[in-house]
């Protein structure tokens, strides 16, 4: 990737007055001030350092806004540059201009950051609820039992069991009601419905196994 110093972005949102895009203040205006502040900071002047960092932050933000679209990315990039400036502040030579020093650091951090994001995008995809749904095979099938299959399975049962299932499970009768309706004893209904459920489970379970 080449360093694209100072190239304006291809697309920006510009208001009707044409000044909505943040105008990037030239570093040359404040250059001398910033160089002096940095020289003081190198000697240990905390307030100068704080002032310098505060003053360069909007400038860095406007530089970052050219490279990153997401506002949180912009802020991350600005903080990354501030930390880098802090870590290598001894490399600044006060006899030389401050602007190029800062802009090179900023550009290198942007490029590293964009590369990192590009690598991550190639390798990873953000996890959405849809991904979780579609990765489970069962989640993609209708969970509702197939009515026809169930009826067919019930028809295959022996007559006593079929009757017990019809009365107790499909018509939702109580044992007593089913007993009077069918003339079967309660014990016999219990046994038959138990066996029916067991064999239904076997028939349907075998079929639905993927």
């Amino acid at each position: 990737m080449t360093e694209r110093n100072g190239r304006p972005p291809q697309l920006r949102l510009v208001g009707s007055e044409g000044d909505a895009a943040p105008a990037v203040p030239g570093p040359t205006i404040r250059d001398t001030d910033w160089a002096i502040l940095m020289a003081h900071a190198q000697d240990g002047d905390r307030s100068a350092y704080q002032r310098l960092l505060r003053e360069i932050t909007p400038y860095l933000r406007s530089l970052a806004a050219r490279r990153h679209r997401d506002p949180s990315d912009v802020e991350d990039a600005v903080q990354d540059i501030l930390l880098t400036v802090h870590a290598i502040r001894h490399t600044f030579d006060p006899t030389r201009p401050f602007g190029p020093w800062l802009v090179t650091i900023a550009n290198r951090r942007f490029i590293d950051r964009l590369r990192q994001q590009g690598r991550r995008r190639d390798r990873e995809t953000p996890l959405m609820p849809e991904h979780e749904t579609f990765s489970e095979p069962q989640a993609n099938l209708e969970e509702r039992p197939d009515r026809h299959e169930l009826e067919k399975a019930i028809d295959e049962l022996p007559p006593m069991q079929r009757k017990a299932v019809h009365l107790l499970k499909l018509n939702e009768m109580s044992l007593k009601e089913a007993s009077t309706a069918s003339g079967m004893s309660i014990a016999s209904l219990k046994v038959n419905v138990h066996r029916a459920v067991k064999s239904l489970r076997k028939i349907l379970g075998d079929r639905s196994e993927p």
Partner: protein
Amino acid sequence: MIATPDLIESLAANMKPVRRLRPPVTRAACWLLLAALVVVLLAVSQGVRPDLATRIHDPSFAAGMVGAILTGVLAAVAAFLVSLPDRSRLWLLLPAPAVVLWLTYIGYQCLGDWVSFGPEGVSIGEATRCLATLVLTSLPLSLAMLVMLRYAAPLRPTAVTCMGSLSVAAITATALSLFHSGDATLMIIMFNIGTAMMFVGLGGLFGRRMMQWIAPRPSIRE
């Protein structure tokens, strides 16, 4: 994520005064002084090759040596310059003429008097001592340069390590040519181009990681 104004507060609160770097050329000179010291110490301990006095009068050998030494010096200067954020990347071209000189005379030497490579051309003992020279020269120099340029890690790690490696390789090649009589064409190529490619390749591959490992950590608390 910490808010940017808070970050600035804590950076300023934890700031300590720092010592500015010396000018890059001075620092390169310090490193080259170390390189000279290493080569001289090796010369004392291993002894220069017996036929150095006669070989040095051979113009192509002498020019090749001068090219290698110049490459070492200029690449070191370029590495120290490029490691700074406010210096142009065009400094990377600084050692190019010296590299051309070096490689031209190596090629000339190889073509001019092609010495065939016989079974007695390279002995195991000689090769082992060559390896010892190679490691003893390059290791301290590489480590010293890595430490001296560690601040370049967030900036241009690959360019800086390639330049540094080129410098180390050229100095190592010089040392190899000084201490070991390998006039077989293969030996000359191995000494010069082999070392250069090895170091620049290693630098390109691992330089970034090595740099990041030794880099000053950007942290709020120091």
